[in-house]
């Protein structure tokens, strides 16, 4: 029997499992192939919804569903925390003592946030990368009566590069709606020399920042917080005082990947081939989504477009045929919605060879994002889009 083991029940792991079963159903039923997903909670979380807990009245319970219900019934699910990958014996050791062998290993283990890596983060700053933190931010915004709101980035890479811009726009809109705009300043701090990394998008959003009166600070990479002076400090040697501070926390890959020798410290990102998605030249180990070190957005969309590539390569290997490169080579495709506030949005779509050419912001793209969020459970994890 060929054993396919997938670590992680997020977008990438769940979709890969469901795409694999579509191609290998006969072999699985015949007992020739097994597909197993390992997830540490058994709950699938729709992370893009966190921002809307802080900004749009979303509820945490609507963003989580049992992983079992999203997986095809022929895919096995093991709930447990991974301790280590033992490459010598082709096995994954779980912390509960269980040991799972594999012939093909898919690492869809995502990223983790480390707010604690910035001293005083817990007491001074907010973020929106967990449901709890987003709810805490919502309460802080509700209590906000005016002052300076600073939105900045405290680590690289981070999930969803447009998110801090979206939050800045949405907060500014909210302050206007609540009659607090005259008593407030909104500051957005960009790590690079313009508002957004993609030049065409930056050119599109810069006048929107100006129109909304949001002050943009460039080359601003947060390194620390001075709690006594309520100021955020940068590695470029600058500082900016705040009344309400929203920071994108530092992110890393999973610790067990570093402990297992699969990913280098300190980042823990898997060295991944940009076309084959194989890890470190290993023919039977693949990575997708946030876990890779590819120079791409850490976003569910990236995993969404990588999953068919991993699927094609494993199916080809299991069935003993050549890889169909049309489906088995990843070309860097990413597609995501971008909120600019006031009920408007746009769309970013690009790959390794083609930069995004975002359409003029309008209500349709905002509605597109809302519809995508609402229908996610029935589409993406099940491989229907």
């Amino acid at each position, binding site marked *: 029997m060929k054993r396919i083991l997938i670590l992680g029940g997020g977008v990438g792991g769940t979709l890969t499992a469901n795409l694999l079963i579509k191609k290998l159903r006969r072999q699985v039923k015949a007992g020739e192939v097994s597909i197993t997903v390992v997830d540490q909670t058994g709950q699938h979380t729709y992370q893009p919804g966190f921002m809307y807990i802080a900004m749009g009245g979303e509820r945490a319970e609507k963003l989580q569903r049992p992983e079992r219900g999203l997986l095809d019934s022929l895919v096995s699910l093991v709930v447990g925390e991974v301790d280590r990958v033992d490459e010598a014996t082709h096995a994954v050791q779980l912390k509960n003592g269980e040991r799972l062998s594999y012939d093909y290993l898919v690492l869809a283990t995502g990223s983790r946030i480390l707010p604690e890596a910035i001293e005083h983060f817990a007491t001074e700053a907010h973020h929106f990368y967990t449901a709890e933190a987003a709810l805490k931010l919502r309460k802080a915004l509700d209590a906000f009566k005016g002052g300076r709101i600073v939105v900045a980035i405290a*680590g*690289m*890479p981070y999930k969803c*590069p447009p998110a801090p811009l979206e939050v800045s726009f949405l907060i500014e809109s909210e302050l206007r709606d609540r009659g607090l705009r005259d008593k407030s300043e909104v500051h957005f701090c960009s*790590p*690079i*020399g313009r508002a957004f*990394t*993609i*030049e065409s998008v930056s050119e599109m959003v810069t006048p929107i920042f100006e129109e909304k009166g949001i002050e943009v600070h460039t*080359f601003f*990479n947060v390194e620390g917080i001075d709690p006594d002076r309520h100021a955020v400090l940068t*590695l*470029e*040697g600058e500082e900016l005082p705040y009344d309400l501070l929203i920071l994108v926390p530092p992110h890393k890959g999973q610790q067990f990947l570093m402990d297992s020798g699969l990913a*280098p410290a*300190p*980042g823990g*990102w898997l*060295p*991944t*081939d*940009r076309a084959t998605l194989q890890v470190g030249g290993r023919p039977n180990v693949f990575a997708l989504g946030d876990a*890779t*070190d*590819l*120079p*791409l*957005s850490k976003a569910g969309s990236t995993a969404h477009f990588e999953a068919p590539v991993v699927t094609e390569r494993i199916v080809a290997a299991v069935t003993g045929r050549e890889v169909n490169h049309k489906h088995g080579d990843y070309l*860097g495709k*990413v597609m995501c919605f971008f909120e600019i506030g006031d009920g408007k949005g746009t769309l*970013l779509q*690009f*790959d*390794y*060879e083609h*930069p*995004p050419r975002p359409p003029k912001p309008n209500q349709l793209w905002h509605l597109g994002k809302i519809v995508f969020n609402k229908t996610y459970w029935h589409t993406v994890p099940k491989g229907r889009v």
Partner: protein
Amino acid sequence: MTDMLTQPGAKRIVDARGSFCPGPLMELIRAIRESEPGQVIAVYSSDTGSKTDIPKWVEKAGHRLVEVARRDDFDEIVVEKTH
């Protein structure tokens, strides 16, 4: 990709070709944050803006620009982390 550090003291290569989001400068900032002072980092970029964007940030952040060179179909920008 991409991010290779073969031996102590070796130049760390960040292959950010084809990166539009987060982009080559963001990839360099990641590598700088993860490195120790004295580390030399070479960024490969197919974004024509990098050869101006990256030196501007390097100057602002107080690191050392070692080299900007045109390779076959990309730019190699070499930076030393100084602090």
